[in-house]
């Protein structure tokens, strides 16, 4: 779900950087308001590296395999650190492996990072609404993890298909968006299940990670 260089017009790439700049500024502002913001930097950095490594795990499905995105889980665990963490992860992927690109780094960060912040806020709601049993953590994690990926996929499909070529007619665009969303729905369900299992495991073994 990374948009490579050269696909989008410059106006979209620059807008992506502008939005990313704004959201990063807001995230850093929230981080600096914390009691000891420096204390969490090593923690956020190592978890960023783990998520980067985890995204290389492939899950086999019928004839092919998918790799995990985990932006929802990053939002849940890292809170406002998730947006800079995703930005850094995408930058590493662009520079080290050529996934995504430098001109599209901003828009890719918007696609992955904003749903992660939504997942964070959504998961916070569980404290106020549902009881603390593990099953509820799983349910909230499923919705937050799967929902974040579905949201990212929708933004991705919409941006790519509406900007890839001015000669693409509206009907073809619509069809292509529906087809790609059908594919991503399956991935969102798997990602949601994975998030539920991961968060349930963490709550059982190391609940303090989820205190963010």
């Amino acid at each position: 779900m990374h948009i490579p260089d050269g696909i989008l017009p410059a106006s979209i790439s620059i807008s992506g950087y502008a939005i990313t700049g704004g959201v990063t500024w807001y995230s850093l502002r929230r981080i600096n308001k914390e009691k000891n913001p420096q204390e969490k930097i090593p923690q956020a950095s190592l978890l960023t590296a783990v998520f980067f490594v985890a995204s290389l795990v492939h899950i086999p499905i019928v004839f092919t395999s998918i790799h995990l995105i985990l932006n929802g889980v990053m939002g849940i665990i890292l809170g406002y650190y998730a947006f800079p963490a995703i930005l850094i992860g995408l930058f590493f992927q662009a520079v080290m492996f050529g996934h995504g690109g430098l001109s599209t780094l901003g828009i890719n960060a918007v696609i992955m990072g904003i749903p992660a912040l939504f997942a964070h806020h959504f998961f916070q709601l569980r404290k106020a609404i549902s009881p603390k049993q593990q099953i509820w953590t799983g349910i909230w994690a499923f919705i937050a993890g799967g929902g974040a990926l579905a949201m990212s996929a929708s933004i991705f499909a919409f941006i790519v298909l509406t900007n890839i070529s001015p000669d693409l007619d509206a009907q073809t665009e619509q069809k292509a968006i529906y087809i790609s969303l059908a594919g991503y729905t399956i991935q969102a369900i798997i990602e949601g299940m994975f998030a539920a299992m991961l968060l349930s495991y963490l709550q059982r073994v190391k609940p303090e990670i989820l205190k963010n």
Partner: protein
Amino acid sequence: MRLAIDKYAYLTSKIHRWEQSSKLVALLALIFAFAFVNKLVLLPAMIAVTIVLYTLSRLPFSFLLNRLCYPGFFIAAVVIFLPFVAGDTVIFSIGWLKIRQEGCLSVVLIVTRFICIFTASLVLFGTAPFLTSIKAMRSLGLSDTIVDMMVLSYRYLEELGEMRTKMQRAMKLRGFQVKIFNFRNLNTRAQLIGSLLIRSYDRSKRIYQAMILRGYGNKSGKYSQNRSKKNDRLSSVAFWITILIASCFIVAEIFYRN
């Protein structure tokens, strides 16, 4: 730690001697100028600039080819589908399959832009050690929080990757069926990532304490590079030439009419 991107970072070409923060600004401007190009007539000039840049960097051609493989899949999908679905002017048809002119032209534009931007990015980060690039970003005003996170993530990336590989190998040795998708296997994978998260979380606390003992948080030391006057002159000439070329592309894109 030395990653694949650093493989040719220690050559001595003119581009390698170009000061990294100045290179970062100039080549990013060039990358955005390339992204701005929509007129086919500008593509040969874009290719020529890219060839000159890559030749000056003295990076081997195989380095570029190896790195083009992965993102090539997405581009390949665009190349395969776009000529059939974009546009109205049919230039060739086999039965119900129609190849359209507008789609083909869009493919040419996208692929050229992609290769040129990709090559410029590779020159930007392949001609200096990755840590130097991060330091250059700090000198250009990138937030300390982001730079610190970047350096620490970079430091532990390879180590955690190895840890994951070892854990996956141990799972396989205990009979884990990698190629089967079921609920139990997904749960095992989730626990693998969970264990990795917990280990890193515990380790991060020790790292923070070690960093505090070494004076982390005290504002001292600024990014500086040992630069000779000769390199300064080279950097400033390279900077202004690149900015001029980038501006030419933007001006030509705005004012040139077919």
